């Protein structure tokens, strides 16, 4: 297997050398690849740009698991059938730790779907990441400048954004709201007064808010989202960017102020944890279970991303007149225009053979995004060129509306962009301590700042 690959590599580099030689001698005969490209006809004609690599296999590695990975496989089935390129996708729920091990062991996949800009930076620093082909770079107009910058390292564009998710959402039960005469808040002050009103109306373990930050090795991440949304919507994009690069520390008054806001919201004993008990239960409740009390009217609202849609039990109707729906989390400060926090994935190449680049180009095209949207709901593209009318799911529509808004202050999940020692280490742990052990804001901030890598 390995020898086979090496031989291919030698053959490929040999071909490249031959091409270079052909070009420099000016014979003008064209590369050997040009003559071999078959012409695709009929339904396959639209894949002509990717033709010429029939019989090749491209390995793709990511954190997406079944059933969502099945939707991915269906989305490129036609592409594979027409071009003859087999895309072999494998997913892992420990992707973040598996990928560096694979790359370090010389067993890198051809392409990887990396969900964290921080991990992308790390991978680029190992020297294993290949620059994207010209066509993928040309597709740059498909993404907003912010998205492109998260796929870049030190100003060089490496990885094309793929899917996007919207984090600035609050899940609620439209029926419950209607029965009690609550209206969807549009300002932070409204949200706070609604929470206070709900707290007065509810009894027992029922509370206006619920939350859960348990998530195995990643326990703590939902709380980082809460803090990030408050930082972005109260302090604005610049402070947010400086916060990621540690120019603004966690101990900085601006971040401390945001933490105070979170303290008065998700750590407020009168407001949480609906259906589960006291504040500390947030630390032990899994993020998957966090919102389920909404269905039993034991919890009023849950702040969680668009992908939480997949957690509702089968048969739950999602929509403005359904069992659950979501509204846009109003910004803390009116001076920040439509703050939107999101996450997403980036297609990163560890190989630069023709077939890999063909797949890379295809995945960066709006045609592929359209194809994926058609397969199944629950998926929004970061690509601005996609046909917005294809979205059928109400949450997808809502998310796409904010993600594609050119005036929105879009920022990527900060903890995913921070160095891993903080973003997937100290900050997660500190959040768990904050919610679970009642640590003070000052100590939480000091704990995270101390873990920032020095070199």
């Amino acid at each position, binding site marked *: *297997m390995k020898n086979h690959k090496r031989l291919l590599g030698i053959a490929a580099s040999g071909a490249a050398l031959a091409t270079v030689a052909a070009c420099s001698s000016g014979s003008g005969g064209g590369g050997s690849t040009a003559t071999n490209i078959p012409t695709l006809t009929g339904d396959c004609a639209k894949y002509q740009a990717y033709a010429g690599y029939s019989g090749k296999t491209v390995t793709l590695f990511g954190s997406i698991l079944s059933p969502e990975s099945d939707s991915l*496989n*269906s989305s490129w*089935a036609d592409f*594979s*059938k027409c071009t003859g390129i*087999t895309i072999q996708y494998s997913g892992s729920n420990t992707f*973040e*730790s598996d990928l*560096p*091990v694979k*790359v*370090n062991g010389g067993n890198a996949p051809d392409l990887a779907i990396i969900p964290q800009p921080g991990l992308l930076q*790390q991978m680029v*620093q*190992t*020297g*294993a990441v290949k620059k994207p082909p010209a066509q993928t770079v040309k597709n740059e107009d498909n993404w907003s400048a912010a998205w492109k910058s998260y796929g870049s390292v030190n100003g060089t564009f490496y990885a094309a954004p793929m899917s996007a998710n919207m984090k600035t959402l609050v899940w609620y039960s439209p029926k419950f709201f209607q029965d009690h005469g609550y209206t969807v808040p549009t300002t932070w002050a409204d949200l706070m007064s609604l929470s206070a009103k709900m707290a007065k109306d509810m009894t*027992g*373990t029922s509370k206006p808010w619920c939350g859960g930050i348990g998530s*195995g*090795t990643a*326990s*703590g991440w939902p709380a980082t989202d809460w803090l990030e949304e408050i930082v972005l919507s109260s302090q604005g994009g610049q402070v947010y960017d400086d916060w990621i690069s540690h120019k603004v520390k966690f101990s900085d008054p601006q971040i401390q102020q945001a933490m105070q806001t979170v303290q008065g919201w998700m750590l407020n004993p009168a407001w949480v944890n609906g259906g*589960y*008990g*006291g504040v*500390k*239960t947030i*630390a*032990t409740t899994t993020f998957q279970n966090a919102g389920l009390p909404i269905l039993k009217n034991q919890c009023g609202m849950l702040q969680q991303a668009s992908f939480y849609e997949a957690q509702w039990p089968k048969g739950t109707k999602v929509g403005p007149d359904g069992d659950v729906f979501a509204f846009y989390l109003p910004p803390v400060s009116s001076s920040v225009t439509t703050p939107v926090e999101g996450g997403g994935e980036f297609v990163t190449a560890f190989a630069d053979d023709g077939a890999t680049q063909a797949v890379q180009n295809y995945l960066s095209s709006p045609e592929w995004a359209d194809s994926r949207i058609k397969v199944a709901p629950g998926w929004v593209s970061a690509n601005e060129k996609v046909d917005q009318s294809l979205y059928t799911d109400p949450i997808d529509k809502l998310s796409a509306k904010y993600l594609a808004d050119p005036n929105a202050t879009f920022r990527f999940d900060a903890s995913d962009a921070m*160095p*891993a*020692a903080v973003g*997937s*280490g*100290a900050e997660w*742990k500190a959040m*768990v*301590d904050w919610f*679970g*052990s009642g640590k003070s804001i000052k100590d939480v901030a000091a704990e995270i700042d101390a873990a920032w*890598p020095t*070199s």
Partner: protein
Amino acid sequence: MATSTPLLASSALGQAASTLLGVIEAIGGFIAILLIVFFIAGRVTGRLQKPLAILITLGPALLLVVIGLVIPAIETINLSFKNQQFLGQLDTKYVGFKNYTYAFGDSYTQHTILRTLLWLLIVPALSVGVGLLASLLMDRMTHTGLPKTLIFLPTAISFVGAAVIWSYVYNYVDPRNPQTGLLSEVAIKLGWHNPPNWLITAPLNTFLEMVIMIWIQAGFAMVVLGAALKSIPDEVIESARLDGAEGFKLFRTIQIPMIRNTLIVVITTVMITTLKVFDIVFTINNGNFSTDVLARQMYADMFVTSQVSRGAALAVIIFVCVIPIMYFNIRQLRSEREIR
């Protein structure tokens, strides 16, 4: 979709077939090489015979130890003196003992080390204590099948499985709601109306996690110590009884000294397992809420939070701690063998 599914299935099948073929090829090749080596070795006579025999019998084991243990150990020790943050990082340099001074100076890691020591003191002592008690009680019993099986059964369960089982026992639900955790339910029925959230209440949670380890290890201790107790000759016990030794005195002055070596081997074996405890802590709380131990922190440093060199330093610390126990363990095993 309909067309793509059989395509995928057939390619997966083809892949499986080629993998299987590869495995058969490899095993066949391995056997062929072995046969050739043995054939040649069998024909060699004279001066070369003995060194060749040593090489053939010792060689493969030595090779595997070097590849699987020695080289990674050297690599890890080397890594622990660098400033590497993630796997494959290019420009790393040596920073001397910085990672070690960090490990012993950082208050979080200090607590981790202290907690690991606590595990090391409590778990082997209680596992052996419970195991010894059980084997003593059952030493002269007639129907020991059921109790022995019940105590030994947990030994057959993986640490992760045991941790999952116990996490249900320790599960916390607000007392106003129906309970799902056994421990909370029992506590409430006994009149403790507001039991704590067991797994996030430090330091209680560490001890609750130790219970899981003891539950697993006690069966092992019971079986080995039970066999040792059985092997004490009846004459010795009888003559001791005639001399007036009964009950605890008999146990302390006759039985314990007679099984001393086995006792030490069991204690050190449990100690080594405890020092490496990872699964239980990882599964129950992922080291959160002040339950972290060295092996879990090492794993997180290496694979989750990109602090590879710090993780390597922790690995070396664990390694250094295991060596003396290991040495003691092997020496005891040897001396026991000499007595026999």
